């Protein structure tokens, strides 16, 4: 158990000592409080590129926490009424995206990317955008508002590199031997909620099943060989452009 934990923290977050829980907390706070100005990629404010660890006023953990809490007078950066440890989780998230961003940016042709998404890529067999496509995989209608180009690109090349907790597939075996597979939506001590491969919303009693396990291998194939680098860049650009419903 200890070894597994260190391995996860070490591989995903490199030299930083934040845990996946911190990053998850921080991402939620970032998207709720910061992304409207800074964008999910953290590069919307001139001079600041949060995804690459470039800040205008400070770069230490403590300095960033202070900036989040107190804001920057004379700029559009407001103070935030958060406990210090929660502000620190935002720093954890910023550090983690700086660690994983690499140089991937959305430099392709989004229109071509859409054609690949809907055609050669067969992406709609599992994914859905704007009411079209399958619900078996994650709905990508807002993927550009929540995931960065580098993360999307990595998912295309290596779908198993990072599967978000909310995108995990489970396999249940009933006491009668029947198998149910689907994407886990929720769970508690007594029940499990999932959407199965036929797009049915199922709520099942744990007591009716003899096995419950996460599927180790993502159902998504790698597109490293299926698409050329240019096609992949186009696809990434299309996905980054998906920001969900634009509120008038």
């Amino acid at each position, binding site marked *: 158990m200890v070894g597994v*934990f260190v391995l996860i923290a070490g591989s995903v977050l490199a030299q930083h*000592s934040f845990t996946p*829980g911190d990053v998850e*907390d921080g991402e939620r706070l970032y998207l709720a409080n910061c992304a409207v100005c800074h964008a999910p990629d953290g590069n919307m404010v001139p001079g600041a590129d949060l995804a690459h660890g470039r800040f205008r006023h400070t770069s230490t953990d*403590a300095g960033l926490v202070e900036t989040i809490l107190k804001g920057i007078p004379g700029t559009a950066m407001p103070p935030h009424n958060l406990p*210090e440890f929660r502000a620190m989780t935002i720093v954890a998230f910023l550090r983690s995206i700086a660690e994983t961003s690499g140089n991937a940016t959305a430099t392709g042709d989004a229109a071509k990317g859409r054609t690949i998404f809907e055609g050669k890529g067969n992406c709609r067999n599992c994914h859905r955008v704007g009411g079209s496509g399958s619900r078996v995989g994650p709905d990508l209608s807002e993927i550009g508002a929540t995931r960065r180009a580098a993360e999307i690109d990595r998912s295309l090349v290596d779908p198993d590199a990072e599967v*978000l907790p909310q995108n995990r597939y489970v396999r249940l075996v009933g006491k009668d031997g029947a198998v149910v597979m689907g994407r886990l939506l*929720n769970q508690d001590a007594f029940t499990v909620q999932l959407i199965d491969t036929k797009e049915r919303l199922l709520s099942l009693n744990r007591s009716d099943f003899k096995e419950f396990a996460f599927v180790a291998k993502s159902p998504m194939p790698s597109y490293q060989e299926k698409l050329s680098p240019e096609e992949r860049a186009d696809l990434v650009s299309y996905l980054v452009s998906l920001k969900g419903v634009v509120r008038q």
Partner: protein
Amino acid sequence: MKLRLLFLLSMCWSVSAQVTFDRILHADREPWNWLTYSGTMLSQRFTQLNQITPANVGNLELRWVWQARSLEKFEATPLVVDGVMYTVQAPNDVVALDAATGRVFWAWSYIPSQEARVCCGRVNRGLAILGDTLFMGTIDAHLIALDAKNGKPLWDKKIGRPEAGYSLTHAPLIVRDKVIVGVAGGEYGIRGLIAAYDVKNGAEAWRFNTIPGPDEPGHETWQNDAWKTGGGSIWVTGSYDPDLNLTYWGIGNPGPDWNGDSRPGDNLYTDSVVALDADTGKLKWQYQFSPHDEFDYDSVEIPVLADVEWQGKPLKAMYWANRNGLFYVIDRATGKFLSGKPFVEVNWMKGFDEKGRPMRVPGKVPSNQGTLIYPGNQGGTNWYSPSYSPRTGLFYISTWAGYSSLYVKRVDEYKEGNQYGGGTPRSPVPFSRSAQNYRKEDEGFGAVRAIDPQTGERKWEFRMSDITEAGILTTATDLLFSGGREGYFYALDARSGSLLWKANLGGAISAGPMSYSVGGRQYVAISAGNSLFTFALRP
């Protein structure tokens, strides 16, 4: 009909006598009431009521719900006195309700100072009562007395400076003519205290500094001026042994929490239990669970008292499930350490020396890179009330099992009113769960664990998917009530741990269950989300 009405009124009159201290001392003789935070002075959270049994618990049904107008966590355990329930709507509004119907008799609103600052929620855990007077601590560090008949304030005593982080969040403890409280604020570099006040007017009767000053014993465990910001907070209610006239309190972490470099030494009386003379506040004995703590292992848990047989001899025992992951048995007359056994995964210590001091594992300290420690920062357990059943002889703990944190230290300067942590523990458990539970395996899980105090061995476990902040109630019919963050409230067989009944209350349970009886009907009450729920058997 008139005669019957008169009879009923006279019954009400006769049972509506004032709550004398003698009644509180012998609360087990009137189990239809719930007169203190933990039920009795022994703090076992065990009820003698026996109407609800393993055979009929499946017939429990919702009787009434009271919805608080507060979005804060509902952590209070209500009191019930002769058919009237008193509870707190967070942060500090007091409400009196008909315990049979949930209808409100009166409500009193309190607006805390804007200066109030609390680390972990604007919460309150309950009230105390004596005579016709209710007592409540507030998050801006006032102790307030209210008339139980109408909610009118009788006196208001400022205990500490809220702008420096002092607050009161626990239910006070009554001992004779004194009301005893301690201050919270361990994350703000406070200097903690436990103090007793005259129930009539709030005049201070005695004070015990949980961080001893230069003229007090224990000060030698501090160096330089570190004691001035040494922490040592209190946020759950202590216990009282009338034969020994001792009151027992668990004390919180030293400040700063996660970096002990600025405070060399054991840092008494942080992470300790102290036994104080209830008349004078003088220290009779102390035991420190986690000397020189750097893991935020507050010993702010309920001191559970039980008179038992230990190795063939009678023992006035204290049972203690500590946040540091160990279950302790202590002689509560002398403070002698008798045993300590892990009830969850523990990697910061490897046993005890002959004096009961934990032996540390080298290298298991916070570091700049982060050090993985079991249990994690929220502990193997926490303020959630445990329960001891004198019938089963088992001790029941709400645990976070398989749970760890990565402890990262840094240097903090003390600034009044700012958090003074000295680091950041990184937890795999999200601070707040979204509507869906995508729990990951490295988070660990919540569980009720039943421990045999004689051996420290686990008898059974009831496992949840999410973690738990729920307390535990056991009954004279060997039922166990508890819940968790998933929002289930459930009844288990206290002897086997098997599930007998459950209800989904839709909001996280962050309070301890209690039981009372009105009109011959036994109720079980629990807070979940922002509401208080009561259950009784279907008529």
